């Protein structure tokens, strides 16, 4: 059953179109992450789903019921806000029970629900405190408790981790994911952080300029980005992209980077049949940094594709070494083993994983193969 269906939804403010023809179907139990740079419309979309904002056109169904004209409180949703939005004059317990109080839930039932949620989130000792007496992480938990206690059809998270410091963010990220695995809730989660999207989502909707660029599981989004925007937005550092030409040789297509230059790079493609119509034309060549590694690395059982490339910059991070090099004159980042430190200004041998190359149409910016 679709927990949430969004059809042909658009939103405009005066002359500004912030959401264009959005269509999403989210299955029950899914953890969907809406990710995109700021201003892409993801928070507006979440507010429209919550009923805090009205769409200009289109329909929203929650649990099979069209909710366009249903008040937020009757949509069977709960929301966690970036600022946590805890009621400052109430204790943690009152914050959690306020919704039930509004719905006239009997007191005994309220107490049982609070006890349950407090145990789940380990916030029992905090129940008597005011939000101002809590740390950021504790506030985050209370905000989640307030959402969980409602046991809704749909959880909405609006950048809930953005206000936490880096260490706590990683902890809470795991905790939210664990929570999802335990209670199997349907979650729509908004973030601008592509790592949060990759680590938590069962499906990712990448948004840009008011429309969904790609809606797929994290592996697909990462491996087969639908267009150049997704390729460059997902992954850190992002996918290397550079202009190239596709040429035909006797045994299949070859992608040529820096054609005509002395350091021209020619890479043979296997299994890229979809690229056939582009032979003899310009393409955008894309390769993830981890698909360029030190020369001794083997990516498959076949003989590795080795290239000699000039090294410009070396960034050791401890877990790996990032190397800025040039492929056919175009800059590219490589992710090599931590103990490998090629000297800048020299040339070194690098192994390429040519099975994972992406080719994009330079006109439409869409993925070719």
């Amino acid at each position: 059953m679709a927990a949430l269906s969004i059809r042909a939804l658009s939103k405009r403010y005066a002359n500004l179109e912030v959401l264009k023809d959005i269509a999403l179907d989210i299955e029950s139990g899914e953890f969907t992450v809406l990710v995109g740079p700021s201003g892409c419309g993801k928070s507006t979309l979440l507010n429209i789903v919550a009923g805090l904002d009205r769409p200009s056109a289109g329909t929203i169904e929650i649990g099979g019921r069209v909710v366009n004209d249903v008040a937020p409180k009757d949509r069977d949703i709960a929301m966690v806000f970036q600022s946590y939005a805890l009621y400052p004059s109430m204790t943690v317990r009152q914050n959690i029970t306020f919704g039930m109080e509004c719905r006239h839930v009997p007191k005994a039932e309220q107490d049982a629900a609070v006890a349950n949620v407090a145990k789940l989130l380990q916030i029992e000792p905090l129940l008597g405190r005011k939000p101002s007496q809590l740390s950021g992480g504790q506030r985050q938990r209370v905000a989640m408790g307030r959402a969980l206690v409602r046991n809704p059809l749909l959880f909405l998270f609006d950048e809930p981790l953005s206000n936490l410091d880096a260490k706590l963010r990683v902890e809470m990220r795991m905790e939210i994911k664990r929570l999802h695995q335990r209670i199997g809730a349907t979650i729509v989660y908004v973030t601008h952080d592509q790592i949060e999207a990759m680590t938590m989502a069962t499906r990712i909707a990448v948004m840009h300029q008011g429309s969904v660029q790609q809606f797929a599981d994290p592996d697909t989004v990462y491996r087969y980005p639908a267009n150049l925007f997704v390729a460059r937005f997902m992954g850190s550092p992002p996918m290397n992209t550079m202009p190239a030409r596709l040429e035909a040789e006797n045994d299949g297509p070859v992608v040529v980077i820096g054609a005509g230059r002395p350091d021209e790079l020619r890479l043979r493609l296997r299994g890229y049949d979809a690229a056939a119509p582009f032979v003899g034309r310009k393409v955008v060549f894309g390769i993830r940094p981890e698909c360029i590694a030190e020369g001794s690395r083997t990516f498959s059982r076949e003989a590795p594709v080795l290239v000699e490339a000039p090294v410009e910059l070396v960034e050791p991070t401890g877990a790996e070494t990032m190397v800025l090099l040039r492929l056919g004159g175009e800059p590219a980042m490589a992710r090599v083993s931590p103990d490998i430190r090629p000297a800048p200004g020299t040339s070194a041998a690098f192994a390429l994983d040519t099975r994972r190359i992406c080719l994009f149409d330079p006109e439409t910016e869409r993925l070719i193969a």
Partner: protein
Amino acid sequence: MSNAATMRPGRPALPEWVRRLPEYLMIWVPLLLSAAHLVSFSLWTIWISFTPSTLVPVAGWVGLRNYSAVAASRNWQIAFDNLLLFGSAFVLLSAATGLILAILLDQRIRGENVLRSIFLYPLAVSFVVTGTVWSWLLNPGLGIQKLIHDLGWTSFKFDWLIDRDMAIWTIVIAAIWQSSGFAMALFLAGLRSVDSDIIKAAQIDGAGPVRTYRRIILPSLWPITVTVVVIQLQFAISTFDLVRALTNGGPGIATQLPALVVYDLMFQRSLLGRGAAAAVLMLLILLAVLLPYAAWRYVQRRRAAHA
């Protein structure tokens, strides 16, 4: 050589005290002058209140005689009772009016800026003007009563200004008109500082507007309420020009207030000692309001620093 290198060219270094001269002149001189005036004249008034001074200040010691005379006078007793009534009615009603105006303005209405200016504008009017205008409006033969009579409703009666028991309420009305806009501005700032996400959260929790205001928004306004009450109270205690222009303490002495008593004793009856005693009593009433407020602010700030 090294000296020349460290100096910026074309900019002779000034001694510290010369560079900070504007600061001293602009802050310390006026501060010291006003503090000296305030403190020295307050001390002088306190001293006078213990002397038998009448038309001119004279030395001598009469102990608390001036105080007992003032406290026993009917004039002061009425003034003090009036202050209690006027002070509490004015403070509560102007805060309530200001809060209601602020809540209404907070509903994202059109023309908010215009309305806000209109409500705030009376604050820019001098109390004497307010008093005079309201004395015309409330004058039965001139103002509202006459207007209604002229419209044909001749049995209408609104003569509080000349009614011994109700005259004090005319001052309350004029004072509310003058300063509820100020309360409104403070409350509106408070309402606007409530995080909009909190209101969205309440909406999702299913709280209606009344419950949202009562349980979530208004509780967050109480520090502002304290500030409003204290500022309005100290205004109420020192009210002089408004009453002087509106009723001049009358009819009879029905709207007498402490500041009018001080003025009356000092400059109309030439009883400097008693006037000073009444002034010191006023100061004590003010301190009774301001000291707890200062203590509260101190505690708040310490708590904020610890949080």
